[in-house]
């Protein structure tokens, strides 16, 4: 999604400074509790924002996603998803480089260039086995051991934490697409990109999100732990984790979360051909 919280008539740089500053204040204010990153010091506030977001989902997002699924053919929908991913391409490459992951940077640049031929609409790169892999500045910070800080829930934008929120703002300014057009066209661009991302994401994960809601004893706690685990897995890229909090109960199962090729004693490596066979069956 993006930066709905940044909208104002001020200059881009000023907005950036204000948001960054307030996030830094928030982060330093919570410095004493960052070592128990499993904790959620703002839980009461987060829960009410979560409730608000749930309401928005029920009233607006979910019905919109249903209409989107009904009215837009699947090929157009996957095209839209591809364009949204393509628009993130440059940011992904920059973050690969920031994480000194040169192979991935090479792959992601190639991916971006290949898909540029259709302005991102057709995911040609995937046919050449160059798959989409999300990288963002929150992950980059995490890969250098920056703690996640307190868990945060933003109105409309959903789950995050101080580190990832800073990452999100940085990503916005790292993305060359953020500077396309004049100041008047940028805001509608960002807003519509965010809305489209939300609708696309909701429709793609429609049953899973509905299931999550209906099968939860405590949906807030469930989303919080899923967010943390997903982010940690994304930061580790399947390698050994940096910075696991001792209080984190999921460390009990860290072995299964850090499954890397080096650990596998007998990897029956799957050739691309085999995968293709499974695809076409």
């Amino acid at each position, binding site marked *: 999604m993006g930066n709905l919280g940044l909208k104002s008539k001020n200059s881009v740089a000023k907005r950036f400074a204000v948001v960054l500053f307030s996030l830094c204040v928030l982060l330093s204010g919570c410095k004493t509790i960052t070592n128990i990153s499993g904790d959620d010091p703002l839980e009461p506030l987060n829960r009410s924002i979560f409730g608000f977001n749930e309401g928005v989902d029920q009233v607006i997002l979910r019905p919109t996603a249903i209409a989107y699924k009904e009215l837009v053919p699947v090929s157009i929908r*996957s095209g839209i998803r591809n364009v949204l991913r393509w628009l993130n391409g440059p940011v992904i490459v920059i973050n690969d480089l920031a994480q000194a992951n040169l192979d991935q940077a090479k792959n992601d640049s190639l991916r971006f260039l290949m898909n540029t031929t259709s302005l991102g609409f057709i*995911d040609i790169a*995937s*046919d050449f086995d160059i*798959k*989409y892999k999300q990288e963002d500045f929150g992950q980059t910070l995490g890969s250098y051991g920056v703690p996640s800080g307190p868990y945060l829930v933003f109105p409309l934008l959903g789950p995050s934490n101080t580190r990832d929120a800073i990452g999100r703002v940085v990503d916005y300014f790292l993305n060359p697409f953020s500077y396309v057009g004049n100041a008047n066209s940028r805001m509608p661009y960002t807003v519509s990109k965010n809305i489209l991302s939300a609708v696309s994401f909701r429709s793609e994960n429609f*049953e*899973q999100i509905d*299931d999550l809601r*209906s*099968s*939860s*004893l*405590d949906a*807030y*706690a*469930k989303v*919080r*732990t*899923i967010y943390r*685990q*997903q982010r*940690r*897995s*994304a930061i580790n890229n399947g390698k050994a984790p940096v910075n696991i909090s001792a209080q984190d*109960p*999921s460390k*009990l*199962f860290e*072995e*299964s*979360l850090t*499954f890397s090729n080096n*650990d*596998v*004693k*007998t*990897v*029956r*490596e*799957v050739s691309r051909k*085999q*995968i293709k066979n*499974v*695809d*076409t*069956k």
Partner: protein
Amino acid sequence: MHSSVKIFVFLIALWIPIETYGEEGSGIRAEQFIEVLSSEALTLATDTTLTSKDRLSKISKLLSEGFDMPWIARFVLGRNWRNASQNEREDYSRLFKTILEHSYSRQFTDYSGQKILILGHKLGRRDYIFVRSRIFDPVRSNIHIDVNWRLVPAGNSFKIVDIVIEGVSMAVTQRNEYASVLQRNGNSIPALINAMRKSLAKLEKHR
């Protein structure tokens, strides 16, 4: 000559089972276990002749055979297991299993028509065996889901104790969720059991 060949064959025959039941062998067998179990599950999902009640009873059977339910139920409750009375433990375990059956049965229908590929295994600490797999969606072929299975040996076979989907562990997720319910209710087990009953009623209404 003849008898020495016989002895040789006999020794080989002895050696083979030892080898297959050794460390490496158990990993391979764990891979096969997951392969068989998951294809059974995926067949179950694609079988349109089944009524949802039949599907639920078959999934229930698959879960009790393939999963170490008492282990998972205990892990999810964490240290609160020790504080629970015998009656509470029984109530909780029974509800836990039923809730899991319902949510898996729903998920199986969502995952219909997918293919699974076993990628390998890893032998972990304390007898744990991890099997790595990848699930493909034939409709959206450029998307795959990495699924890792955590197993423990059980007699001649295995039991699943966790499924990790794209880095998200089912057991850890449930443990954290239940811990939150307990924490918000002064660590009262009856309150948790009550919340589970409500959740189950909701699940049953939705089918």
